[in-house]
């Protein structure tokens, strides 16, 4: 209930408008100055109120849960009773948990899809930047997976990967290849999910690259052509460096999103794949937290994952700064 009263508190709690000291402004146009002050003050209060909203949101929905998660990771907690403080036991247990290491490795493996996806997206963007017939249609087609529901896509791909009648193996059969049972096989389940994820993310990266390519100044290409640069040279020394900020942005966001891959795995391989070979770290966290009620332990894993993502992102920013440049 206090939710309603809490937010506007700053406004009524500030001193009432009438308490402006009267003797202070006795010289010129006292009324006008007082009015100005009042106005300033009111505006300030309103400003504070507006700023308070996001600050409150941050405190309540980000900082507080974050702090609580840090605390919960030091407890034994089943989500029903009060957490029980056990120090660093969860973290030491993590080191000996083979599934934790395995799912961490699986998650890292999925990252292979990121460079593949970026290269394909860049190539597509270059192709679609030319004047080819049906350009808009192609751009739309590649973007459709991005706006489709991930759950629906995962189910469709699950059918496509079926060993017996799946679309993927039917196409392979045209070329005389006897495809595996993709999702039931420890060797193929991760690549299968990577292919799907690349396909799903392609349109988004392509769109950003397309925008970046189109904003490269024409004059650079013209000058290079005059100097005798061929198509490859222009790509290598102009396009690629000019889209670098986009590449950096995509790498960072893809790594952060990729480390939390969960939905497609949970739908396509509900048991974590044969011998847990497709289970990602978030899949394992969810399993521990909600299937086995080990909230404290699961939170400890989430904290470690958060730290890893933080460090990796930090490294990326360092590398980016070292390699950055500016024209003119």
């Amino acid at each position, binding site marked *: 209930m*206090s*939710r309603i009263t809490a937010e506007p508190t700053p406004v009524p709690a*500030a001193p009432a408008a009438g308490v402006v000291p009267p003797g202070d402004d006795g010289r010129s146009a006292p009324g006008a100055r007082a009015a100005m002050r009042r106005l300033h003050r009111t505006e300030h209060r309103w400003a504070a109120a507006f700023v*308070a909203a996001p600050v*409150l949101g941050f405190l309540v929905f980000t900082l507080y849960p974050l702090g609580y998660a840090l605390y919960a990771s030091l407890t034994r907690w089943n989500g029903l*009773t009060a957490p029980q403080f056990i120090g660093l036991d969860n973290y030491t247990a993590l080191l000996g948990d083979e599934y934790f290491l395995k799912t961490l490795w699986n998650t890292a493996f999925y990252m292979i899809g990121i460079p593949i996806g970026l290269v394909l997206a860049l190539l597509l963007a270059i192709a679609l930047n030319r004047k080819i017939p049906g350009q808009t249609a192609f751009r739309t087609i590649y973007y459709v997976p991005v706006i489709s529901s991930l759950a629906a896509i995962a189910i469709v791909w699950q059918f496509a990967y079926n060993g*017996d009648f799946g679309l993927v193996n039917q196409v392979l059969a045209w070329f005389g290849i006897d495809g595996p049972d993709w999702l039931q096989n420890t060797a193929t389940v991760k690549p299968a999910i990577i292919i799907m994820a690349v396909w799903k993310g392609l349109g988004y990266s392509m769109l950003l690259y397309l925008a970046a390519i189109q904003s490269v100044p024409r004059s650079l290409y013209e000058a290079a052509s005059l100097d005798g640069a061929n198509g490859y040279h222009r790509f290598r020394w102009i396009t690629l460096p000019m889209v670098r900020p986009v590449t950096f942005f995509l790498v960072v966001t893809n790594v952060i999103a990729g480390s939390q891959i969960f939905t497609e795995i949970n739908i396509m391989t509900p*048991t974590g794949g044969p011998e*847990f070979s497709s289970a990602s770290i978030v899949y394992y966290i969810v399993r521990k937290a909600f*299937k086995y009620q080990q909230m404290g332990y699961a939170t400890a894993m989430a904290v470690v994952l958060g730290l890893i993502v933080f460090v990796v992102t930090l490294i990326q920013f360092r590398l980016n700064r070292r390699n950055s440049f500016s024209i003119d």
Partner: protein
Amino acid sequence: MTTKTLRATALALAGALALTACGTGGGGDDSSGGGDALTFMFRGGPDEKAAYQAAIDKFTEDTGVEVRMTVTDADQYATKLQAAVSGNKVPDVFYIEQANLQSYVGSGVLLDITDQVEEAGVDLDDLWEYGVDSYRFDGTLQGTPEGRLYGLPKDVGPFAFGYNKTMLEAAGIPLPDPDVPLTFDEFRDIAKQLTVDTDGDGALDQWGTGLNVQWNLQSMVWSNGGDWTNEDRTEVTVDTPEFAEALQYFADLTNVDGVTPSASEAATLDTYQRWMAGEIGFFPVGPWDVSVYNDLDFEYDLIPWPAGSTGESATWIGSLGIGVSATSADPDAAVQLATYLSADPDAQQTLVDANIQIPNLIDVAQEWASAPDAQPANRQEFLDIVQDYGRAMPASFTYGAEWYDELWVNIQPVLDGKQTAADYLAEAQPKMQALLDESNANAEMAGGA
């Protein structure tokens, strides 16, 4: 200026604190959802929902107590219930799984209903002993007759074995005896005869059986003299020769004998669908399957499970309980609803007529089993399982099932014939033991708290 900003920030902070404090502290009082209505949370498909609606309408008519029902999908129920518990919005009456009973008792969510049920004049001897004892807990062991009562059985689910009568008759195979279990060898022989290519296109389209390791291995292991744990559930015993022999037999049915659809055939259309399409000779039948199976294009009947070296059939009995919230605003009415759903003859009749369960009341059940138009004819098998040879699932009475699930995680190579059962079980035992130790430690801690 700055002081004002500071003040505003301080106020904002104070507000935030007040807000979070409210979030954790408040809301405890209106846990029953307000009003006089009881809340009842359960799970099930459309058939079950309709049956329960009918039973509860009758309850409201008789007692004047309104009931608000919340129904979820089976696989979402546990998560939703847990969310309700964390949010201090525990429904007055709700389904409780055997395996979660101890943690819900330990955290004070479930009401001890022993005395109230007794006062209400319910004779628990009229109900299946297994069903009632499943929800007894004496602080250390669950499932013992001495424990306090924390729930009543919603139902008991004897997992029986069935066969496609039409298929066996067409193949000229004598129908199996409903009283004497087949041996493992006999079962394999019949299954081999049934596994044929009926339309001559070079691909098999009829199989002897098609079993799922997670639900069917229990029967084979138990009837072969093995088990998951010792009696007081402290030691994992999956690395015994009896256990290994049963698992090997199970895997060989696919890999050596070839009497089941292959892994990829089963992935294309699972064996449950194939059984219903009449492609499979022998398949498990639970009471919850009967309403669907009775409409199939072939006749089927129940028999005891094939028996291993002990010569005795074995299988598991599932059960779901109905518990009452310890924070219910009207515990008497809540207990009344729970006993009504579990033990009232009229309510039982409504639920049984919907073909979603077998009767909880023993005498109603016996009448039901001997009905002349019973379908399947050998309904008695369900009752035999509950009374004689059914057991609880290995993890039903332990604190959480993680130790038990561990067995399935890496079992695929055995099912694919790439690893022997004995090798695998020797690898799995220590891991399962560690998890069971942990679960027992957790149980102790929760019990002490």
